[in-house]
């Protein structure tokens, strides 16, 4: 007898047994899900809030920061423009994430379901990437302005030798690199653990198409 035929015979026998009553099932409806989509949703929410806070906190807490900003960007239009742009980008990401979550449907085919989850994860990735790049750019621009536009620091830096200057730039680059690496590892770990199985199964389905 074919292996699967034998299995099927036994399998059908199992079909007639019932294990749970209506009473057993009711409480299950109100238990909390631990699905990866739900976890992904909480992570993306946390990311949004975290980066919005990082962007906004200095505006609210530090007067001196605002003063310095005013000094650096003497032209107010630039600052307003940048602020509006950054919030517009955040709104765009919120919209994209919302749309992407809406498109995740458990009644889709397995492959489509996996693809929509991976797409959502990608949007979160781009959001984080955008924030890291924005943070990096503002650091560089800030440093540049500090060197050239602020009278005090301009004098300070003029006394530093080229060798020391190279060292300062090296240290700043190194700190930035370590910072980015730590964040990158953190994300690899979170998403790696969360999506390990999904990725494996998705690749398996993809492999079937290639074979």
């Amino acid at each position, binding site marked *: *007898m*074919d*292996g*699967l035929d*034998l*299995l*099927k015979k*036994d*399998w059908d026998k*199992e*079909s*007639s*047994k*019932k*294990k*749970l*009553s*209506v009473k057993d*099932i*009711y409480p*299950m*409806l109100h*238990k*909390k*899900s*631990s*699905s*990866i*989509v739900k*976890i992904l949703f909480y992570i993306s929410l946390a990311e949004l809030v975290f980066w919005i806070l990082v962007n906004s906190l200095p505006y609210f807490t530090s007067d001196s920061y605002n003063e310095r900003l005013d000094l650096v960007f003497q032209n107010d239009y630039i600052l307003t423009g940048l602020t509006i742009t950054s919030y517009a980008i955040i709104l765009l990401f919120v919209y994209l994430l919302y749309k992407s979550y809406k498109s995740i*449907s*458990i*009644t*889709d*085919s*397995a*492959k*489509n*379901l*996996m693809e929509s*989850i991976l797409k959502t994860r990608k949007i979160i990735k781009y959001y984080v990437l955008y924030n890291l790049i924005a943070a990096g750019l503002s650091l560089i621009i800030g440093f540049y302005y500090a060197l050239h536009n602020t009278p005090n620091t301009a004098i300070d830096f003029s006394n530093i030798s080229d060798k020391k200057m190279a060292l300062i730039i090296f240290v700043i680059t190194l700190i930035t690199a370590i910072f980015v690496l730590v964040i990158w590892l953190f994300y690899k770990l979170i998403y790696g653990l*969360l999506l390990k*199985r*999904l990725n*494996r*199964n998705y690749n*398996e*389905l993809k492999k*079937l*198409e290639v*074979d």
Partner: protein
Amino acid sequence: MTKELEHSFVELLEKHQNIVHKVCRLYTNNYDAHNDLFQEITIQLWKAYPKFRGDAKFSTWMYRVGLNTAITLYRKSKRSIKTQDFQGVEFKIKAEYYDDTEEEQLKVLYKAVHQLNDIEKALVFLYLEDKDYREISETLGITQVNARVKMNRIKTKLRTILNP
């Protein structure tokens, strides 16, 4: 309204619960993990139920939600076994357990099926449930040809285990 919806859902699930139990049986290997997965599939079914339209059969709809939860959404608890590559295990099983009686053969078969990867299990599950290749391919999102080819490979493997 919610109470009515809840009532009709629970009745339907109670009637068709075996589908979910069978998914759990393939994807878990002990009592606690079985219940854990059953619970998660029930939640997913309940969440999707308001969108369920009567034009599809409730059982067909359950296959999709059940398998999708098992393959994609469910985070395996530590209690369940890790899936291994099929080829590697084959010989070990043969040497340890091979016997001529049907019961022993079933044991070997179940053990072998448990070692398949998640996608292979889904194929076996739908096959055992008498689903045709059209439905199998639609549920998994692969072509019918690929579903057939993969299924034949799995069958051959299971056959060689029983008749070495």
